[in-house]
């Protein structure tokens, strides 16, 4: 006999697991299918930031703010220490051009209720005494936070199992079929076959592949990010750090043109954040190189020279590990959340690119609300997979 579930989730990354948690909370019978291991995708190979400042004002900033509120209570709810902490964040500014753009950006974010401001060189030095003199100003948000994604996944997973979720791993989905009784048939490479009314594609960077099984084109590509991890050291400064150099190129195409060729090619934007254990994570690259997850000398050495530019004091600190993950990058930079038109019961929750950790709680909650036909916590119409149609049209 085939096993029948209310919902089958494809992909045990942070998005699939969060969705499983909120669905089992509502009493749904959930099956999780994972091709490799829990967290073997991007969610196990990334930074740990709930970065509010980098979000363009709009739905993603709203979702991040909502997730931030949710994370505050999740450690208790999941009975797992998620290592959630609010250390604040700064985006370092090196010249007047960057300053002008960041001023405007900060103004817009404030209008969405984000607690962020620009601070001058003197205040930068107070918060970051070891920073190089080249920094002329910085943004500062006291609420930029972080969380340990591995802990979050473990917490979601264990609570979902407690509430009756089943998991089959390693088990890769290889075919999807809509049956005449309205159910979806899901076939896996270990020769299992499952039925459910609802299937959720939470396969991250692999979402396009899974979409094909259902006859849906999903414009999501893997965008590789390399990171270097330092040994455990004392705090270098009060907050976590990013550089404006990369962020402004996303906001102003003219500056993007002028960017150093190699930094642009590798898509390097500095992130410099410390885990609770004391290791610093130094990132990162943004590369379209397929599903390759190797770290390269070129990538890592360029990341490290960015951090040395701002914090020469790190010269004598050791790198103990490097890794790379695949961000699920959607064509317009926004995730796809919702049911696919004309494919009743086939939902997508993928394409969070560099924000999946920050957006996981609210994504899971909204997906569960959609599937149970409830009012949504936030209107996410603009994230609907319906926009696929427009993107698929030949230009």
């Amino acid at each position, binding site marked *: 006999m085939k096993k029948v579930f209310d919902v089958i989730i494809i992909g045990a990354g942070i998005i699939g697991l969060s969705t499983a948690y909120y669905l089992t909370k509502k009493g749904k019978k959930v099956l999780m299918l994972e091709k490799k291991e829990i967290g073997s995708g991007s969610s196990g190979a990334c930074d740990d930031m709930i970065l509010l400042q980098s979000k363009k004002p709009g739905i993603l900033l709203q979702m991040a703010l909502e997730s931030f509120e949710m994370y505050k209570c999740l450690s208790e709810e999941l009975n797992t220490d998620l290592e959630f902490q609010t250390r604040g964040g700064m985006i370092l500014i090196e010249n007047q051009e960057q300053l002008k753009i960041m001023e405007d950006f900060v103004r817009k974010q404030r209008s969405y209720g984000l607690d962020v401001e620009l601070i001058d060189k003197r205040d930068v030095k107070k918060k970051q005494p070891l920073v190089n003199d080249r920094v002329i100003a910085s943004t500062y948000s006291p609420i930029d936070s972080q969380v340990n994604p591995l802990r979050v996944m473990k917490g979601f997973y264990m609570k979902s199992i407690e509430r009756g979720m089943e998991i089959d*791993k390693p088990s890769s989905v290889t075919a999807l079929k809509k049956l005449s009784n309205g159910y979806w048939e899901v076939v896996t490479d270990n020769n299992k076959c499952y039925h459910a009314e609802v299937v959720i594609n939470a396969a991250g960077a692999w979402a396009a592949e899974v979409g094909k099984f259902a006859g849906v084109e999903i414009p999501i590509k893997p965008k590789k990010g390399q990171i270097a991890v330092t040994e455990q050291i004392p705090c270098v400064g009060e907050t976590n750090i990013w550089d404006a150099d990369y962020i402004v190129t996303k906001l102003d195409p003219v500056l993007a043109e002028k960017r150093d060729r190699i930094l642009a090619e590798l898509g390097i934007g500095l992130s410099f954040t410390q885990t609770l254990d004391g290791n610093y994570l130094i990132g990162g690259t943004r590369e379209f190189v397929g599903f390759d997850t190797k770290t390269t*000398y070129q990538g890592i050495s360029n990341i490290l*020279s960015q951090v040395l530019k701002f914090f020469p004091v*790190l010269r004598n600190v050791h790198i103990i590990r490097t890794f790379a993950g695949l961000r699920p990058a959607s064509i317009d930079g926004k995730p796809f959340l919702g049911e696919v038109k004309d494919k009743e019961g086939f939902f997508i929750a993928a394409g969070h690119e560099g924000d999946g950790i920050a957006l996981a709680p609210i994504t899971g909650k909204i997906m569960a609300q959609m599937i149970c036909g409830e009012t949504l916590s936030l209107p996410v119409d603009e994230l609907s997979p319906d926009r696929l149609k427009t993107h698929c049209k030949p230009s």
Partner: protein
Amino acid sequence: MDETKNFVCRCEEVTVEEIEEAIDNGATTLNEVKRWTRAGMGLCQGRTCRKNVARILSRKTGRKLEELMPSTYRKPVRPVRIGLFEEKKIRGTSNENMG
């Protein structure tokens, strides 16, 4: 002496008990144990504890050691000083993988 309190991973101070607990909670591979406990994520990157963690997983799950996929090895092989990258920098000329 209570052996479950012995450290398996000395860098991250992870005990036998913690490894066993992760397995009881559903970790079925060496990578999953690593991600859930941090065993093998410290300064030595699992050089000393990798085999011991594998033995515990094998004992608890009844699977043979050879059947367990080793957890991912991450470069660099030994800790490297950040300054060294700066001194050796080959900008853009080399796309080789790290050593």
